[in-house]
């Protein structure tokens, strides 16, 4: 597996190594979401190149982009985006439906600590639990890249920390590249790589030799 690199038209370019936990940090309007959309194959660039795992996704057709989202990328949404009329297990199965070599949904839910809540509907779960289902849904596809859009944005700090711990564990245990997009600077110490954005440009890219553990950070 090669490295992940981003080239942006506004002369934003950065790269993320495989297996890294990367935090893209910046205030609102800094262009974080644009970066996320581009990385996730949800938007198209007007110029420049994005390479993921040796694949130039900027040159993919709409269908190929869908295929890319289907197999290579996992999404974790700020508002979880679970199907309200599917149980936790079925929400995870939703991902398995479209992915060829998916993991066993029940197994993944067990790993995120929701063994007991598998048969519950989203409305019966707390925010943190819902976000864990959302992560399980993303992980089930065994993606090369896990994109998280403000994963803790709708959670209280304690639950938020639990979710972050889970994400960190995922990147360490499976070697999944995790990109967390957030405005919350407190998360930055967790990452191997911190990309700070401001007004649509890269402000700085920082490498963290010794990322902090979840217990060490707080907000």
């Amino acid at each position, binding site marked *: 597996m090669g490295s992940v690199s981003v080239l942006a038209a506004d002369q934003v370019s950065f790269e993320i190594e495989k297996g890294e936990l990367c935090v893209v940090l910046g205030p609102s309007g800094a262009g974080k979401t644009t970066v996320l*959309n581009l990385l996730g194959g949800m938007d198209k660039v007007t110029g420049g190149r994005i390479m993921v795992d040796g694949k130039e996704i900027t040159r993919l057709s709409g269908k190929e982009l869908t295929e890319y989202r289907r197999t290579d990328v996992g999404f974790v949404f700020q508002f979880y*985006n679970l199907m309200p*009329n599917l149980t936790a297990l079925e929400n995870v199965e*939703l991902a398995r439906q479209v992915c060829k070599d998916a993991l066993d949904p029940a197994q993944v839910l067990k790993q995120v600590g929701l063994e007991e809540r598998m048969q519950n509907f989203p*409305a019966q779960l707390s925010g943190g639990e819902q976000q864990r289902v959302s992560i399980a849904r993303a992980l089930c596809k065994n993606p090369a890249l896990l994109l998280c859009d403000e994963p803790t944005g709708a959670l209280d700090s304690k639950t938020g920390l639990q979710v972050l711990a889970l994400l960190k564990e995922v990147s360490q245990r499976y070697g999944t590249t995790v990109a967390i997009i957030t405005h919350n600077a407190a998360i930055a110490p967790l990452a191997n790589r911190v990309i700070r954005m401001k007004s649509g440009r890269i402000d700085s890219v920082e490498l963290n030799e010794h990322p902090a553990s979840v217990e060490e950070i707080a907000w």
Partner: protein
Amino acid sequence: MVRNALSRKLIRDIWKNRMQFLAVILLCALGTWLFSGLDAAWRMIDLSANTYFEEQNLADLWVTLQPVDRQTLKTIELTDGVERLQARATVNMDTDLDNDSSLMVTAVDRPSEINIPLMYEGEPLADNDLRGCLLDDAFAKANNLHPGDSIGLKWQGQTWRYIIRGTCLSPEYVALSKNVVKDPSTYGFIIVNHDSIPMLPLSSVVVELSEGADEEAVKVSISEAYPEALIIDHASHTATHGVQKDVDMFRNLSYLFPLLAYFIAALIVLTTITRMLENQRVQMGTLKALGYRDGQMLRHYLSYALYPSLIGSVLGLVVGRLTLPDLLWVLEEVQFSLPYRIQAPVSPGQIGACVLCVALAVGICYKTYRSNAKEQTASLLRPKPPKAGKRLLLERWTALWNRLGFNGKMVVRNLLRNKVRTLMSFMGVFMCTALLITSLGLQDSVQFFVDKYYRGTVQYTVRAGLTGSAGEADAYRKRVDAERTEAVMDMTVSARSGTDSRTIVMSIMEDDQQLMNFGPGETWMPMPVDGVMVTQKMAEVLHIGVGDPIQLWLTGDDEPIHTYVESIASVTVGQNVYMSRTLWEEQNKGGFVPTALHVKNPTEAGLRYLKDLDELDELLYPTEQGQDTLKILDSLSQIFGLMSAAALGLAFVVLYNMGLLNFMERSREYATLKVLGYHQKEIRRLITTENNLLTGLGILCALWPGRFLTGLVLKLAESDTMVFASTVKLPSYAIACVVTYLFSWLITKLLTRKVKTIDMVEALKSVE
């Protein structure tokens, strides 16, 4: 300033939700259109006919008795409550035109002050005019006759020539027909002075009652003086009774169909307005937080329902009044000759329908608004928590549930999550299929009716009507070269049972007749031996059944035939009594003189022999008669077409609107699926499966109700002389199902096109 900003918001909201508003407008319009249209139609028919009857002074009573002499006239005239009367002779005579036409001759003994003819062309008939006549305007037009032309009437071997002074319509002959439907080219009426043909015996008296007279008392005194007299009042005269029957039918329809339409409209309005207000939740909270008073907000939000429902129902009212009465009038013209139509003024019922429609919409809106406004401002500002998913009863049945597959499970859960929406779409499909089946079924039933009578009941190839100078029945049988020849003697009698009485045709037939099949199917029903056989309608109008006594009064006879009903013929046309030749001859009321011959498969020689008969009146071929009946009943297809169009229109509005709501409601879910890597095709398949399931279910459930509705409409439409059996043929079911399915498929196609437009970025936004 404040109101200005709010009303600008209102206008923009309406524009944003224009499809929903349009749906509310259309559905309110559809409901009031049907109701006010049908309401205006029956009022128009009622008003037009009654004005006509009033203006032309339609008789209150028709008294048929023989002989009508000076003494009789005096007695009736002096009866308490009788204002004035007119004696006449009425008889059918053939014309000298070469189209086998005949006319109902009405020879009057004095100028018409009762049943005044409404003049079209020419001059009224002068009192002392012994050469002139007034001719039925429709007959004159169909035969290209004008005032100044002459017409000959054949009676007792002589031709009586009259000069047409004028053409007219008569209020007592609005429903004049020899067959099932009127045919003005071969049958009409003619009015002459009795002095011009004095040997024709006066046979009836028309009576006008004085103001406030007791009709029943007059009837009783006349029948006490003349027990053999047949008295007909408005309730049983073909003119008034027929029109009233149609008025009743349209009035009944005006309650039935709009009720269904209103039901659908109310549900659609409910879902649409509830959804729109729920989408406004956060904005409501914002307005409240900004300090808007309750009254201001209420006014604003009620406008959501008020304007579309008001526009819709008034539109429906206007369009309904403009379209439906005219369309239904065409149907009336098939049966009745009414000279003019008078648009009835807007009735309280029509206004009521609009008010009800608006009240319903505003009421629903108010209730939704209240339930939202009850909440605290702060909680309003937070989005409503999503509706929780639920375990279904179906899931307990694991064997089936596990077999459903992932998409299947999702579809089923979705359908049951938003029950109102599901129910609405289901109802849309259901109504569409049921109405289509009904409209096709009505055509099947009319076709079946014609087939049953002209191919099932009637077994002869040709019927030869004979004039008075016919010979011996057996002689004809020997001389006509055919598979079978039977003689029939038809006569007009007054049939009475208890207080009910009707003037009907009695047919005396050979004991072993085989050319009329009276059985319900293939089973042969023999001619009665000791009693008589009556048709279904006859039994119905006289309220008699098998074994009940019946009196048959021959014209001019003072002692009736007392007999009983031995069997009921399954004949769909006419009020008739059938008697065997043997029983007739036992009555000593006269010989068996054929008035018609039923002939089966005549050879060419046989047919030529019939044609050359001096006493031949006309030859009738059942196959041709059936075709003619069908052709004229074709005008009914306008109504069928209208119903089908309404059904499809309704289905379109409901299905499209509900589909759109569903799509918008779940666009976030679809966006998420798209982000997760679902292909557009897969998302489209989800929507298609869901709609197909609903459509299939709706179609299946509508099959029986469609049939039922066909029967109901036929029952309402049934006239006094016809019995319709409701029949829906298999192809009609198939067509209705396929058309509905294709329609739903088309709408699904329209909706799934929107999948392309789903913006994945939607998925990232917060719930609003």
